[in-house]
């Protein structure tokens, strides 16, 4: 039961509350560049979701089985050269960025080959955008988030398993798709409006993105609310956190710059 609550919280948080575009700013380049037509935007969102899921699967697998200290593959190989105790402490996480980008590049390559073979019309309509997904910040960001929840936590009980990692990737992609489709719908209407000349193109898109981000800010606190409802915490903890929120500004800064588990993302 606890596990499903965790999955629900991760899904909600990744797709709506801490939306990849409106909260974490990753994936802004396609957001500003590709969001002119709704069907293109939806196709881009689906492609990013698909690639993100594959890349998250690969990066979770490599992190858990090769990179972190005590991982099976690294311990096995190092066991030929040193004692088993020293082999269990080999920490390869310094290679994680290189490994992740390699995994992302190869998954994009595979997706491209697959789409070219089985959906040629879709491949033609994508054009140059499919290889460009390699440099999409959102995919690497999803891998980094998974790494921080696998290699960066001290308590072994809080390490994310494959289900949570795939939930983050899938719903992060769904949130990205929601954001980019909303934006493209607005931009299609915007073509009939009288936008001032200096603002045409990217500038007005960013301003509208800011207004959408304000709208999405209304969802903050939903995950802690659901968490408190489904997993009630002792009353003592509630009182101490209430007392520190004196002013509105402090309250806003308090609740909006925190990640899923209350850790600070930005100052």
């Amino acid at each position: 039961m606890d596990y499903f609550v965790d999955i629900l919280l991760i899904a909600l948080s990744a797709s709506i509350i801490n939306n990849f575009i409106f909260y974490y700013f990753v994936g802004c380049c396609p957001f500003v560049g590709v969001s002119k037509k709704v069907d293109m935007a939806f196709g881009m969102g689906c492609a990013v979701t698909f690639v993100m899921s594959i890349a998250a699967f690969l990066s979770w697998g490599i992190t858990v089985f090769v990179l972190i200290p005590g991982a099976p593959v690294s311990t096995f190989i190092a066991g030929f050269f040193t004692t088993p105790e020293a082999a269990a402490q080999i920490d390869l996480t310094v290679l994680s960025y290189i490994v992740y980008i390699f995994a992302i590049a190869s998954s994009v390559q595979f997706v491209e080959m697959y789409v070219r073979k089985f959906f040629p019309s879709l491949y033609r309509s994508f054009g140059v955008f499919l290889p460009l997904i390699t440099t999409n910040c959102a995919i690497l960001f999803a891998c980094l988030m998974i790494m921080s929840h696998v290699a960066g936590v001290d308590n072994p009980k809080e390490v994310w398993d494959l289900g949570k990692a795939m939930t983050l990737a899938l719903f992060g992609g769904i949130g990205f798709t929601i954001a980019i489709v909303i934006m493209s719908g607005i931009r299609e209407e915007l073509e009939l409006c009288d936008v001032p000349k200096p603002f045409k193109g990217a500038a007005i898109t960013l301003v509208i993105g800011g207004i959408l981000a304000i709208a999405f800010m209304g969802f903050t606190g939903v995950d802690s609310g659901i968490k408190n409802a489904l997993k009630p915490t002792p009353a003592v903890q509630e009182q101490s956190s209430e007392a520190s929120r004196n002013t509105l500004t402090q309250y806003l800064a308090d609740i909006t710059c925190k990640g899923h588990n209350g850790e600070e993302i930005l100052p």
Partner: protein
Amino acid sequence: MADQPTAMERFVQGILPENPVYRQLLGLCATLAVTNGMKSALTMAVCVAFVLVCANVVISLIRNLLTPHLRIVVFTLTIATFVTVADRVLAAYMFQMSKTLGPYIPLIIVNCIIICRCEVCASKQNVVIAAADALGQSIGFGLALASIAAIREILGTGMLMGFRVLPAFWPDWVIMVLPPGAFITLGLLLGLVNYIDFKREEARK
């Protein structure tokens, strides 16, 4: 080959005329994310400068060995190596800043500025021109970050790097240091830059 821009021209071009953020619209993720405060913006600018210069130099040195199909992968792996170096140095010597910047330092790997510069300039020119180009672009990037961070921090907290700039009765526009403020600030500044550009073109006519 005679009318290729010289090193000095490339350096100057990168600062304002071909500014990576305001003119080429690259690297928006990093720009929006770290411009909460001036300190994080300047740290990010220095990191990007380091990675850009090193990657440009290395790619320019091996430019005759690149095959067309694999060049993007080679660029990305080179950049990933230098970003790992920058990330570990930052974590070792400025731990608090490293925690604040969080996942945005590794995201320099997929920052479009660096890959674009490698593709356009470093894989075709010699080392001196590539290095000058990288320096110009990173100064331009730093200027863009500093301008956005200054506005966001002054309007959002009334202080700039610890110094009080606005009087004490200023009601802090907290929205400016939150995500929506980033989008709106960048959009408005981009509009301003476009406006200045149009006015200059009209004056030239």
